[in-house]
């Protein structure tokens, strides 16, 4: 056999394991590419259906909202809906699955830090959901006149929300001990809050009491800010949206840091 002899103690210190981060990132992207149809084509078709149903059938009977046609109005909401659920499911599955099958042993035994592990998994999940969000945007613009007033802010909101919900998904994946738990929070909490969070309507369309209730839904602030970057109109002040977006991001980051300080649920 011909194994090269190990190079004796090369004194080089490894300060950032970029090969390791890249390996995980590529692994995660490859996983999505294997199921390209499911990852991108399905959402594109679903989006088209939304526009056929909401845009053409219902939207034509609705007044424009703040000067924006209903079809165009729901584009940012649709994108956020996809970003939330895709980031969460990708990141949670990405870390849960190796935990479930046991292949996590390799990551734990590798010279890679927790920060690097998070960068790799969360980075890959965010990448995938951003690509999906942009696919939806592209599909939507085939049906309705989409127009982006503040492209810089649009990208910023997209990026931060994708990373935040990927972090959130990562936490779910670490916490979950079974498949049901993995689905629980996204299905019972995040999706309803998103639907009730003005993804498909302006909360100003609601009766006053419900408007007040809606303001307790943090998702309202995230979607409103994102929509503002498109059309310059918003349900809440954009400064508030920004604060919520960054606050949620910081909270998720903090929880991940706390989890890893204790090695929680990854190591015995």
């Amino acid at each position, binding site marked *: 056999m011909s*194994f090269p002899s190990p190079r004796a*103690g090369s004194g080089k210190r490894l300060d950032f394991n970029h090969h390791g981060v890249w390996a995980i990132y590529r692994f995660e992207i490859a996983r999505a590419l294997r199921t390209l149809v499911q990852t991108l084509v399905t959402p594109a078709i679903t989006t088209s259906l939304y526009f056929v149903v909401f845009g053409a059938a219902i939207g034509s009977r609705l007044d424009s909202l703040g000067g924006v046609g209903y079809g165009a109005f729901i584009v940012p909401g649709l994108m956020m809906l996809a970003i939330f659920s895709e980031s969460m499911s990708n990141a949670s599955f990405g870390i849960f699955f190796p935990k479930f099958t046991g*292949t996590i042993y390799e990551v734990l035994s590798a010279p890679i830090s927790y920060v690097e592990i998070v960068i790799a998994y969360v980075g890959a999940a965010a990448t995938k959901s951003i690509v999906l969000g942009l696919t939806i945007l592209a599909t939507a613009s085939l049906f309705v006149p989409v127009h982006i007033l503040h492209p810089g802010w649009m990208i910023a909101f997209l990026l931060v929300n994708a990373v935040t919900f990927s972090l959130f998904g990562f936490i779910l994946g670490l916490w979950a001990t079974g498949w049901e738990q993995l689905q629980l929070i996204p299905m019972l909490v995040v999706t309803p809050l998103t639907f009730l969070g003005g993804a498909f309507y302006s909360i100003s369309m609601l009766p006053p009491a419900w408007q007040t209730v809606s303001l307790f839904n943090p998702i309202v602030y995230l979607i409103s800010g994102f929509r503002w970057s498109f059309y310059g109109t918003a349900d809440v002040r954009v400064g508030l949206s920004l604060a919520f977006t960054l606050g949620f991001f910081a909270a998720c980051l903090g929880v991940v840091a706390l989890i890893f300080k204790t090695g929680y649920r990854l*190591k015995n």
Partner: protein
Amino acid sequence: MNPDIAPVIRIRGLTKRYASGAVALKPVDLDIAKGEIFALLGPNGAGKSTLINIICGIVTPSSGSVTADGHDIQREYRAARAKIGLVPQELTTDSFETVWATVNFSRGLFGKPANPDYVARLLRDLSLSDKRNARIMSLSGGMKRRVMIAKALSHEPEILFLDEPTAGVDVELRRDMWNLVRSLRERGVTVILTTHYIEEAEEMADRVGVINKGELILVEEKRTLMKTLGKRQLVLHLASPLSAVPPELGPWRLELSAGGHELVHTVDGDRSIDVAALLERMSSLSIGIRDLQTHQSSLEEIFVSLVSRHA
């Protein structure tokens, strides 16, 4: 073990109590020399995997310290882990990845730049070349184990841990595994393996450690162990019983047993006796022999007697 050379693995006061309360390791001290093959023996639940998993970073120790090639496994985990390869006890592989992708993934994960030549050679040496584009789930269990070994060797580790590498593999793969370990040793790689097959330790190891209920009850050169604890005996079954050992047979230091039906010689260390001359002398004394047996206590017997003594 040469005490002048710094050990490649140095374990001091290592303990582990799992969250469940199970004490898997009592304070363990152990040095492993560079380039040696060390076999860790012990019954189920003895703490072998726990010990290995702590060194490899998968389990957090409760107390104590471990250094790998001089690097503390916790404070300098990057430097320590970069030197270590692990084939865990359980067969856990990705299913949808190809062999080629998964081995390259491991190499990257351990911080090494891509080296297709090395990986290709590794796969060839493990008889995996024709499977390189196969998805792992399409492989047999033995093939998957080879893949796991390839992954463990993908980053050219200097220390290799094999946690029960031959559990449930066929004779051929087992022999391949032994050859692999020997060839690794020739290249200066330190190999630490656990096994339930004592013959495996007997065949390959330089030193043997016996662990029982989280306690390292013995660490010894295999040869010394076999010599001091392993008995070799020659048993002659006689055609008709004797009442005493004939004085003519004095030089062979024989003992009478089985009610005079057997003459037994116990070999002392490495000194062997001239069996042919003994048989000749017996025939000249007209002592008939029905049967002749030699018996050497295996490492297995040594092991069983050790563990039961400490139970």
